[in-house]
């Protein structure tokens, strides 16, 4: 399922909303999560899962083609852990 398919499904269930409203809602939702992670916050959605960030240390990488060393800076990566009820649902 893609974002546009999700928008269509939600629009068909809520006839009073326009397609563009649903688009805005879904966009707001995911932007909110991104923004929270950017601030270093975590987002805990019961029944779904938790979004957090993890720190990746700086390291020396290598260009696989030429073998030249490349410095990779320290960075924050988004991380998702599924919730209990999600775990139960996909394992039933």
């Amino acid at each position, binding site marked *: 399922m893609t*974002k546009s398919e*999700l928008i269509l499904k939600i629009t068909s269930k809520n006839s009073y909303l326009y397609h563009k409203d649903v688009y805005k809602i879904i966009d707001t939702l995911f932007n909110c999560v991104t923004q929270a992670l950017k601030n270093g916050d975590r987002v805990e959605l019961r029944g779904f899962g938790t979004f957090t960030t993890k720190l990746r240390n700086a390291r020396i990488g290598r260009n696989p083609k030429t073998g030249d060393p490349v410095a990779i800076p320290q960075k924050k990566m988004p991380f998702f852990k599924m919730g209990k009820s999600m775990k139960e649902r996909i394992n039933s």
Partner: protein
Amino acid sequence: MKKTWTKNDLIEKIQSEIGISLSDSSKIFEEIVEEILSSLENGNDVKISNFGTFSVKKKKSRLGRNPKTGDEKEITARNVISFYPSKTVKSKIS
């Protein structure tokens, strides 16, 4: 300070940004979560552009060990959800 965002924070944010009632906002939120969950339940990946992809991974059963007692025990086959963040999200957060 570190803060934990919950469902209610997101529902309120949608309500104030879109201008719909709190009950509608909450209903739509639940519908979105339900759609994503049922898609994953059926084994279909969920791809949200500019955010990331949720996919179902099948894990095989394997032998694990109780770290405390050292006893060997079989870990049964199970499904897990993995999330791959999109490039935009990665670059925004870093």
